[in-house]
């Protein structure tokens, strides 16, 4: 591995973990959302390095473009950047961080002691995951899941509209009955 590769991957890892920590620590929800945008963009660069250009651009458009804008819109709509601060349950933070360290240690132990040698991730060419190949696979072998996802998106849209609809009809009916 050349030095420039190590610098590249090390920089990406530092930015990804740092922005995730920034999202976790920051008290203002707007800054948390912006840190998460940075994290998603960094992971998109990692996807490009792994030879997945279609997924990388989907990540940029769907996650950082659509989902995070929705988040920012709802945060500003509700005016919920900051909550009035008070102490959470006593010792919750310490126990939570301790459990997280235990979880990470478990994952590391599993990775190191599973008696299976792993090689480096091979460099894949541009042909492997080109949008053409992904489209061919998605519209032939995975056509049914694709249609199901379309239905899920439709029902989610209808559900979101129904959930946020102001129930005006009931009050008007009641007032008409009273008249």
């Amino acid at each position, binding site marked *: 591995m050349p030095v420039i590769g190590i610098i590249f*991957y090390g920089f990406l890892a530092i930015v990804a973990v740092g922005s995730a920590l920034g999202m976790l620590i920051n008290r203002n929800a707007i800054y948390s959302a912006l840190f998460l945008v940075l*994290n998603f963009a960094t992971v998109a660069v990692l996807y490009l390095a792994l030879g997945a250009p279609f997924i990388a651009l989907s990540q940029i458009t769907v*996650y950082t473009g659509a989902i995070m804008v929705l988040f920012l819109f709802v945060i500003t709509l509700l005016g919920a950047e900051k909550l009035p601060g008070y102490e*959470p349950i006593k010792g919750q933070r310490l126990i939570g*961080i301790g459990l997280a360290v235990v979880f990470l240690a478990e994952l590391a132990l599993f990775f190191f002691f599973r008696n299976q040698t792993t090689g480096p*991730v091979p460099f894949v060419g541009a042909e492997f995951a080109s949008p053409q190949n992904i489209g061919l696979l998605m519209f032939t072998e995975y056509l049914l899941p694709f249609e199901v996802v379309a239905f899920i998106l439709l029902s989610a849209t209808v*559900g979101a509209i129904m959930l946020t609809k102001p129930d005006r009809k009931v009050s008007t009916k009641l007032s008409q009955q009273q008249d």
Partner: protein
Amino acid sequence: MPLGYFLGLSAVMFTIGILGVILRRNALVVFMSLELMFNAANLVFVTFASYYQVLTGQIFVFFVMAVAAAEVAVGLALMVAIFRTKRTIDIDLMSSLKG
């Protein structure tokens, strides 16, 4: 690049997401931590798609993204509906079912 780099990065990001769900009180930040965990899982999918030279992992990541978008739409609508009745999105205060 060794496989452990991507797996380790994904594990750290997933753990930070879990910490966000456990520690934060703002329900919107809890949702963002969920997105971070989805992202960590997607990174492992793409890593193994390249590692084994099988395209199915990347297709699955696409489906995960679509379902996550649907989940966020419904979840944020729920947040708005809860905010209308309770006037807060502090998850410590959403305790109406507590006896």
